[in-house]
């Protein structure tokens, strides 16, 4: 069991190592280095020299990678060119804001998805299922920027209930944030809930067709007792992994949503740093977002392991 957990963590670390290599090599291979890219037409003379010295671009690439990587491991991401300050200071408030947005969305999204998934599965092909499934198909296929734009148009402009654009400084307090994040949260959790509800639905349907549920029905176990005792524990377990993959996939959608609502989080920083051609920040963001992805999947794997009694006694599993 412990060996298994260590193996998973090891695999995650290897993935992160490869990600760091990919982003580093990618930035190296693509035309222009961080300084010429950032300075563009002013990339000559003393400005270029100063920039090269600041980033240490005058040493060979592998040495720079080693230094950068060892700094990142110690939690130092280097220096932002456009902000002219350490990247950690740029990141701090952004990470906090995105965390608020993401955790509120997840706290609303996951329970809602489970309830909707169960309803649609138990009333499969009946009216509740058809109605909810149609809505979920719509909200999971329509791009985030469209649902967000429509939300602003209908709720903020036509109805005038909520502010359409978040106008808060990036270091706003938690309470200032809450009143502003209702629409972004709706936009993100809508698509997330739809994806997860569909997975819960098919997982529940699969379990309902299994032998042990048929057995429970034949034995005369009351319907709701059967649902809660036999179906749900077995149906939700495999859903955990899929839900984790979905959350990670939606990171891209969070970027777009933050831009639409002008929300000062990590997502907008992605766009800003790329528009400013601030490659050190882009590298830092790649590592951070990849760590979130790997972390979420690791947690899901561990949760599945903990909750599955069959795997507890297992020593080696490929």
């Amino acid at each position: 069991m412990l060996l298994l957990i260590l193996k998973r963590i090891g695999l995650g670390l290897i993935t992160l190592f490869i990600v760091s290599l990919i982003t580093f090599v990618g930035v190296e291979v693509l035309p222009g280095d961080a300084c010429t890219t950032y300075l563009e037409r002013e990339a000559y003379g003393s400005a270029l020299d100063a920039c090269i010295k600041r980033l240490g671009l005058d040493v060979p690439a592998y040495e720079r990678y080693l230094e950068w990587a060892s700094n990142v491991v110690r939690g130092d991401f280097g220096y932002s060119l456009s902000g002219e300050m350490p990247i950690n200071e740029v990141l701090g408030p952004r990470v906090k804001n995105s965390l608020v947005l993401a955790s509120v969305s997840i706290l609303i999204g996951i329970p809602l998805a489970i309830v909707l998934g169960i309803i649609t599965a138990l009333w499969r092909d009946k009216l509740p299922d058809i109605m909810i499934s149609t809505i979920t198909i719509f909200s999971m296929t329509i791009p985030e920027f469209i649902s967000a734009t429509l939300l602003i148009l209908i709720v903020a402009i036509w109805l005038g209930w909520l502010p359409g654009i978040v106008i808060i400084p990036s270091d706003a307090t938690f309470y200032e944030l809450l009143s502003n994040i209702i629409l972004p949260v709706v936009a993100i959790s809508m698509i997330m809930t739809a994806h997860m509800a569909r997975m819960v639905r098919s997982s529940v349907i699969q379990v309902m067709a299994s032998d042990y549920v048929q057995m429970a029905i034949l034995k005369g176990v009351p319907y709701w007792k059967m649902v809660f005792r036999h179906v749900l524990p077995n149906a939700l377990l495999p859903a955990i992994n899929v839900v984790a993959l979905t959350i990670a996939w939606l990171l891209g959608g969070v970027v777009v949503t933050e831009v639409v609502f002008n929300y000062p989080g990590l997502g907008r920083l992605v766009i800003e740093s790329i528009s400013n051609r601030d490659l050190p920040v882009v590298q830092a963001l790649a590592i951070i977002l990849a760590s979130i992805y790997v972390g979420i999947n690791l947690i899901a794997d561990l949760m599945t392991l903990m909750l599955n009694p069959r795997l507890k006694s297992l020593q080696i599993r490929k």
Partner: protein
Amino acid sequence: MESNLITEDKQKNKLEKAFEILKTMASKPSGLIGLTIVLFHVILALISPYIAPYDYKAISPNTMLLAPSAEHWFGTDSLGRDVFTRTILGGRTALTVTFFGSLIALLWGGLLGIFCGLVGGKIDDVVMRVVDAFLSIPWILAMLLIVSLLGTSTEVLIPALGFFYGKGIVRVARAATHDVIAKDFIVSARARGHSNMSIIWNEIIPNVRDAILVEGAMRWSWMLLGFSSLSFLGFGVSPPTPDWGLMISNARGLMSFAYWSVIAPIVGLSSLIIGINLTADAFAKALGIDRSTKAPV
């Protein structure tokens, strides 16, 4: 002569099979709706340059932000361009980029996946690690980086999209190859002394093709989503190319009094994405592949 007949017969069978699949797809309402929408968009994309009433890049200060009327069915945008013209031409851009992108994704993803499934061992392990690492970089960051360093032309966008959406296909193709490779008919083909190439071409590809095609159809809709998001963020095709993502992002600031210029591209893009999704689902069901429990990675 005889061999000709046989190949003709085979050809006919293939066509009949494809027709059967289409019929099964259209037999359910969701599949029929999806097919109709996709067909409508494809036809519109093919004929739009000939039926477009105005020049898509003609700027005119006299016709700025006009409401929908008999002359301008969907109104005009902030530069006085006809929204109807730009909307029907926008589908052409989206379909061209994502069609060729999906083709590239299917080719390299499918071939690498089959290769990994076949050779196994160390090479397979290493390749899959790298694929996993690529999967854990959010698509948007990678795409933005490539596009911002190489420029926003379709010559860059199509291969970049094809590359990034192909890595998921590698996994599917590999898994499907793993399932097939242990079957008896492969063993007997080996025993008959067939070469590796012949086994790949005649035994493995026909058996993994369905799984890869279904995955490709799904990727197509995600790629369309990704491509239009990029355009929306200003990193897709460059203006004045008519493109839905770009149109929505331009018209967004003015939508409090000119909502028509944002509604038309929204309807176009949403309907195409929903259409492709429904079609892909129906396609998967017609081929008997269950992908309802898969995560969208």
